């Protein structure tokens, strides 16, 4: 590691020049020469297959009389009125979807804070790590859904139960990845921070959190998908409102097109959340991508 050497590096300021060149070369090869052509092509690439698949679904189910498999036309037709019926304030979107997402964000936020704080503490101490690790590994390995019946004992079936379910499920991947990230901090950087007498707060802020951030993000990403699963599951067990609750209600009352519209909406929520997540992490980890690339090229 120490001898990555300077041979493969750029010696000037334009460090990302090499990457840009490669991208340009790739574009030149694919033959998209004009700006307009390039834009059109990339739009086509993004939209093309989804459009084909949706059309296929539309056409294949059009005129379907299958009870379980209603035409996409019907599903789309019920979508608006099912979720955004008027008045808007009483629509399912406000009454069910928003509470679900808020519970998810609350539980996820708690897990993030607790996980990172505990992870930094445990990761910074060799003894504490050895002490806590087997127990943490066990809790991480417990499939989070089995905690729902347990937590229902303590907290009933209200909002707090759902938030705690989400928080306990999201906690472990964040916590363990943070521990791993803190453990993996470069000792040379730690020495540097000590030699320049960085205080505890500055060390945590500038060294530990930044240095562990790639692993923290990895854990947070795993936690997000677990959180969505738990958001839905906690509502399927017992609830008065929520996206998962609504979908199950539709299924039990055999309102099939509405159920499908809920499945699609849930998918959209998942996709949107992951887009937000990616935007946030890209902003905080931009240095890491370049750093990785430079290590890759230099080694």
């Amino acid at each position, binding site marked *: *590691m*120490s*001898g*990555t*050497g*300077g041979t493969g*590096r*750029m*010696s000037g*300021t*334009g*460090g*990302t020049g090499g990457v840009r060149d490669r991208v340009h070369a790739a574009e030149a090869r694919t033959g998209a020469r004009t700006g307009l052509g390039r834009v059109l092509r990339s739009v086509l690439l993004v939209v093309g297959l989804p459009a084909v698949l949706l059309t296929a679904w539309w056409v294949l189910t059009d005129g379907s009389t299958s009870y379980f498999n209603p035409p996409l036309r019907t599903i789309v037709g019920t979508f608006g009125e099912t979720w955004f019926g008027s008045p808007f304030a009483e629509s399912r979107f406000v009454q069910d979807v928003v509470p679900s997402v808020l519970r998810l964000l609350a539980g996820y936020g708690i897990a993030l804070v607790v996980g990172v704080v505990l992870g930094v503490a445990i990761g910074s101490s*060799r003894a504490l790590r050895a002490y806590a690790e087997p127990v943490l590994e066990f809790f991480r390995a417990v499939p989070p859904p089995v905690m729902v019946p347990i937590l229902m004992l303590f907290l009933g079936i209200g909002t707090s139960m759902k938030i705690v379910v989400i928080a306990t499920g999201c906690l472990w991947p964040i916590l363990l990845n943070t521990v791993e990230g803190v453990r993996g901090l*470069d*000792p*040379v*950087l*730690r*020495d*540097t921070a*000590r*030699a*320049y*007498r*960085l*205080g505890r707060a*500055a060390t945590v802020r*500038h*060294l530990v959190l*930044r*240095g562990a*951030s790639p692993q923290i993000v990895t854990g947070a990403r795993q936690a997000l998908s677990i959180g969505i699963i738990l958001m839905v599951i906690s509502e399927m067990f017992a609830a008065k409102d929520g996206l998962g609750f609504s979908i199950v209600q539709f299924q039990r009352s055999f309102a099939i097109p509405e159920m499908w519209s809920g499945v699609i909406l849930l998918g959209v929520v998942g996709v949107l959340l992951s887009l937000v997540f990616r935007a946030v992490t890209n902003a905080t980890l931009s*240095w*890491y991508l*370049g*750093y990785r690339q*430079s*290590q890759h090229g230099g080694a």
Partner: protein
Amino acid sequence: MTGPDGSAAASAAPSGARLDVRGLRKVYPGSGRSGSGRSGRGRSGSGGAGAPVEAISDLTFEVRPGELVCVVGPSGAGKTTLLRCMAGLLPATSGEVVLGESAITGPPEGMAVVLQEYGRSLFPWMTVAQNVELPLKEKRVTRRRRAELVRETLAAVGLGDVDGAYPWQLSGGMQQRVAIARAAAYEPRVLLMDEPFAAVDAQTRFDLEDLVRALWKRLGITVVFVTHDIDEAIYLGERVLVLSARPTVVLEDVEVGLGPDRDQLETRGTAEFARLRTHVYELVQQAKQGVRSLAAARLTHTVGGADV
């Protein structure tokens, strides 16, 4: 690149401090090095898992205020251990390191360190300027003064135009310049350098050596420079401490009479340089074979250097 410019920075420059190493001894306990932060180097020679390893046996020397002293020795001589003890990063088993008036127990105020692993001692998530600025923030230097120091020192190491770049976008030599700029901006009274140029190419190395001499002269600080390169030690140092193999003692404290102004071509071509080089080279060879005192060393080329 570090010409007479930027001498304004020297106006507020603190003077160097005295550094005393007294009876320093360091024994690593068995089963590898416990404790955090071994840089991973110098593991060689530690026999097996269980046995304690005596890295430094008994070191006593002093560095006068404002002096530039180089430390050489065979590889595995505990040079890095010595430097880490002096930096307060590693507790000594016995003996002490005294900076100014007070013994060092942890990283002391007024000391800056430049490590060999340039690629790993800079924070990759910070720009060059932020890297230089961070220790100053912690020292509670005012914002205006920080900006001034960052600008001046980066210009002094010839990196005035890359302050917004990330360290990993720079070549190895440039990264080490950033580390040096960070140390200089810190306005230390003592600067410790641990084989800082071991991993940069030869040409860059000459430039960086001149840079260190120039900074040292301008800032008037005390510099301890650890290296395994004999030529580098002689070219840079006012004195060269030659260490024995592990467990380490000082073999000889060599005065370098090359004058205050040095030049890569001329200085290295002088007879005095050649004489010192031969002498130190022989000492290091003897040290490798286990010689632990100057009296026991059999030097075939006499120190007087009648033949040159």
